[in-house]
């Protein structure tokens, strides 16, 4: 097993994945899992690949950088031996919640909310911002999908988030994920 993690960042353009994947193929590597995302016009991808035993992360990184010259990409390849973190190995029983912060962007918004979630043992599984500007509150939305340990004190967490909401002039809601799923997924 010669596992590597590859991160690719840069301005979105056609051909990034094609180029990266073909270099991995030239190295006789196999992509085991990958995810890509777009943030405004910024492309980001994370790939997990298995390389031949005599290959190395440094080699692959060099090839990738050479063959994507001119695309202005930031590419890093790291050897990856680590297993799941302690949290995942001893994962407490959790309940999935959605935390939404409604209102204009504020400096420190993510830091404050994420910090409070962390203090309550909550793990963020996904985070997305929907900032379109304007006066419609629904166009200025920050969404945290989180796993809350069953042992967490929900009332404490809600109070703490309410305090942040008051300070930053936001509305923060904490709702169980099931309500979003039930209302959205009619065909299941």
């Amino acid at each position, binding site marked *: 097993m010669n596992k590597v993690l590859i991160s690719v960042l840069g301005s979105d353009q056609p051909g990034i994945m094609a180029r990266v994947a073909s270099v991995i193929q030239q190295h006789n590597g196999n992509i085991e899992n990958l995810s890509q995302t777009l943030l405004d016009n910024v492309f980001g991808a994370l790939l997990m690949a298995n390389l031949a035993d005599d290959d190395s992360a440094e080699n692959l990184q060099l090839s990738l950088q050479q063959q994507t010259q001119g695309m202005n990409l930031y590419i890093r390849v790291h050897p990856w031996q680590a297993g799941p973190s302690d949290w995942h190995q001893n994962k407490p029983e959790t309940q999935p919640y*959605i935390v*939404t912060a*409604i209102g204009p962007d504020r400096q420190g918004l993510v830091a404050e909310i994420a910090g409070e979630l962390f203090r309550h043992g909550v793990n963020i599984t*996904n985070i*997305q911002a*929907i900032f379109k500007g304007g006066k419609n509150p*629904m166009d200025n*939305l920050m*969404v945290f*999908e989180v796993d809350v340990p069953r042992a967490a004190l*929900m009332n404490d967490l*809600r109070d703490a988030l309410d305090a942040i909401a008051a300070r930053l002039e936001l509305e923060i*809601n*904490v*709702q*169980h*994920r*099931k*309500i*979003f*799923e*039930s*209302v*959205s997924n*009619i065909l299941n």
Partner: protein
Amino acid sequence: MLTPKEIISTLQMVREENLDLRTVTVGINLTDCVSHDIGTFKRKIYDKITRTAGQLVATCNRIERRYGIEVANKRISVSPIGVVGAPFNADQMVEIALTLDKAAIELGVDFVGGFSALVEKGMSHGDTALIDAIPQALTESQRVCSSVNVASTRAGLNMDAIKRMGVIIKQAAELTAEDDGLAAAKLVVFANIPQDVPFMAGAYLGIGEADAVVSVGVSGPGVVKAALERAMAEEDNLDLSRAADVIKQTAARLTRAGELVGREVAQILGLPFGIVDLSLAPTPNENDSVGEIFEAIGLPAIGAPGSTAFLAMLNDAVKKGGAFASSHVGGLSGAFIPVCEDLTIARSAAEGTLALEKLEAMTAVCSVGLDMIALPGDTSAEMLSAIIADEMAIGVINKKTTAARLIPAPGKQAGDHVVFGGLLGEGPVMAVNMGNQENRFVRLGGRIPAPIQSLVN
């Protein structure tokens, strides 16, 4: 991962469009409380109700926080007291109503329904005692609601019972004259009453139901209106087929929210889950009105020509969406058009756009009937009975539920304003054609036979 659209649309329904669980209603069977002794009976029903639903309010509050959805009302429905209290006389029936009231106050629930009689074909001793007790029971209690089923498609119309109900409604209103006849607003007369309605004033627990069961009533006229308005703004060529689709999909989403909460409450209380009743039930607030949906679709006002056609489509689309989203949809499920409980409908009635006759026509295609209608105080008992008979006939012939909740407001004339407060709202006194006259047709009594089930034209 949830998509932004899924997150935003759910948040919008809850935050801006008044999606709420109008009621979580625990149905409690009282047949095992029967006794010939009034003291024993009262103690047993009080104990069973407070024991079974002891955690209802606390549980609803917990679920409310978990999902961020308001549970607006917590209610109890019980077996028809006319049946389980059959040995008792009218005075004792009033005592039973006050016991139900005491249990409701102890539990912190908003209403208790089931002070009811099922008399579509005839009245037993218990039914007669219960009906006689209604005016005083609803006057002295705060939270008790009463319903009487006087007709069904299988049995026809019990005109003796309908004649009696005209008198009872009048008495109930007169006993609460200071409150514009409030007691009559807690009394509803039915044809084809469903056994599992969670909405008031018609909620009771049918004889065929379990020992205890949790049902939910979901509302959300504001959500339907907003969905229609959004679709009309976004789609250039939206026609009524597409509008029906939008209503149907919205109804399905509302139903899902209701079933989720209902099942969870049932699980925590250790009771079976019954049904979701998805009904567009307005409250006297902006953005929570069925009448506004009529305006959103392009009618000048509810009551204008076209209103019956649109109501038929609305009611049907709501039912279809609900039935698709949940296998256990029940109760009334459709669109309510209660005059005093709906700002826009009350306004149309006050402005004369909506008259009693048009309202009656519309009840042929809505899910309940002539609901929360204030009438002149001098409307005769016989005319009240005649209005009820007309409304029941619509239900009986069309194999649907119809109901009448009529409030002859003492001392008030057509055009005056009445105020009942809270969810019961306020509105104009509507004119009744020849309302203060006698009605010898009603006086004949007897039964109008059940309709033929073939030759359907």
